[in-house]
């Protein structure tokens, strides 16, 4: 019993420790993004572009496929559910709203967490083990400016961009299913979608995606920097990074929806 409480206490303390660490990382990265250039130590554009390619561009195919498939599934479920009420055409506002407000951002969040949340933790973790982070510091290069700030900026640009792509693909997927099942033209479908959607719906999804971007960057980097203990440690921190990223995204999404949909 004693061991149990002690263990629990240690885990809570570690959790708070990591939370503080992540908050500091965020503050410091923002500082370098804004003030780095003034101090003659800018965040390198080349590093940001490299990260954007890794995080965003390389994720385009998988995001497109998953979003499309998801759109098809949602439309299918919607049509079957609404058929009992003879209200199949109401599937369109349902699709339009839930995709733009919710699922576009969520799909992208989960894909990016799985691809990049793990990769970031593994990369920084192995740099930590091979003393590359120490080398950066003694070479007078701040590791947060050099490693974290480009990742954060790239996330902030690419996750919303991918979300827009995911929205379009999911709506297309849903639309094609509607065309097949409900026999109206694709043009009619898009007109209806545009008529139902308001700018604020799309913005809600994009704001969420910005929050997801920050969460993935911070969780990935924190787990990387805190990795200890050889190959095993890197494996552990990589797994942990993905699990925590996805958990953080889903919980943040729920809180967001609770507050914004009142």
């Amino acid at each position, binding site marked *: 019993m004693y061991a149990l409480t002690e263990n629990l206490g240690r885990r809570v303390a570690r959790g708070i420790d990591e939370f503080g660490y992540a908050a500091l990382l965020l503050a410091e990265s923002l500082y370098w993004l804004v003030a780095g250039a003034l101090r003659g130590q800018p965040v390198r554009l080349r590093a940001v572009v490299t990260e954007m390619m890794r995080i965003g561009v390389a994720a385009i195919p998988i995001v497109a496929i998953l979003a499309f498939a998801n759109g098809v599934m949602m439309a299918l479920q919607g049509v079957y559910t609404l058929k009992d009420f003879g209200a199949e055409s109401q599937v369109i506002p349902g699709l339009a709203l839930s995709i733009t407000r919710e699922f576009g951002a969520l799909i992208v969040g989960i894909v990016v967490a799985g691809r990049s949340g793990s990769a970031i933790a593994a990369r920084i973790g192995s740099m930590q083990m091979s*003393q*590359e982070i*120490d*080398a950066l510091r*003694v*070479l*007078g*290069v701040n590791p947060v400016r050099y490693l974290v700030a480009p990742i954060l900026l790239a996330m902030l640009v690419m996750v919303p961009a991918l979300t827009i792509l995911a929205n379009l693909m999911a709506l297309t997927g849903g639309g094609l299913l509607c065309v097949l099942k409900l026999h109206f033209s694709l043009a009619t479908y898009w007109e209806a979608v545009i008529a139902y959607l308001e700018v604020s719906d799309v913005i809600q999804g994009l704001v969420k995606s910005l929050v997801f971007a920050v969460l993935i960057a911070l969780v990935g980097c924190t787990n990387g920097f805190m990795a200890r203990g050889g190959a095993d440690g890197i494996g552990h921190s990589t797994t942990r990074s993905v699990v925590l990223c996805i958990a953080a995204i889903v919980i943040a999404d729920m809180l967001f929806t609770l507050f914004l949909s009142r």
Partner: protein
Amino acid sequence: MGAAAIAGTRERLQPGQPVVEVQGLGARYGEVSVLEDVDLSIRAGEIHVIMGGSGSGKSTLLRHLLGLNRPAAGTVRLFGQDIGRLGERELLALRKRIGVSFQGGALFSSMTVEDNVAFPLREHTRLDENTIRIMSRMKLEVVNMAGFEDLLPNQLSGGMVKRAALARAIVMDPELLFFDEPSAGLDPVVSAELDELIIRLRDIMKITIVVVTHELESAFKIADRITVLDRGRILMTDTTEAVRATDQGRVQALLQRRPEAQQQDAEDYLQRLTR
């Protein structure tokens, strides 16, 4: 004239002047004390070897000298500045005056050898690409690594990694160079080559060099003075001859690789096993 031009405005150190001064340094990891009351003074122009077995605290001492760890007690001064009290900006200025070659090289694995060596120049100077290229190749030439510029670190042998790391460490023409375990994991011939290289660097570039090692042979070959570290304490600091001739039992035991006689209390032993 030439040396002064490279060094710019910073004043050049006189030989014999202390470059590194450590006073009463203490360090602990959690409950375990790793360094206790360490005093150390390293003079300009010397090759100073910090020698000790594994677990003696020499890596921790090095991390403190580099400002990577904050001291739990005592002070570390580099070039007369207390590094525990420096702000980020002064620490940066200070770090441009030192070079470090880590145990495993710590080359950036995503960059070629040349990019690794050029990295400090790209980050800290406004030199054009051509000049940077020439300067990095010059340093690679110094460590006999010409012709390997385009290889990645994982394509290099152990000795080549150390030499490339050394080239990166000296590319900014530091006044003080730290070298962690130059001979670890190398065969005797390559290790001897590195020793020669270290001596040559001191002679050509007039750098003060601090070498942390557990290799006795290499330590006595290159050192002007040796500090013997054991279980977090300094046993002695003196010239190689004096260290060799000392009558301190523990130092002699280390030099002759005699394992420490375990004083075993039977009751204590049983208690430890059954606890």
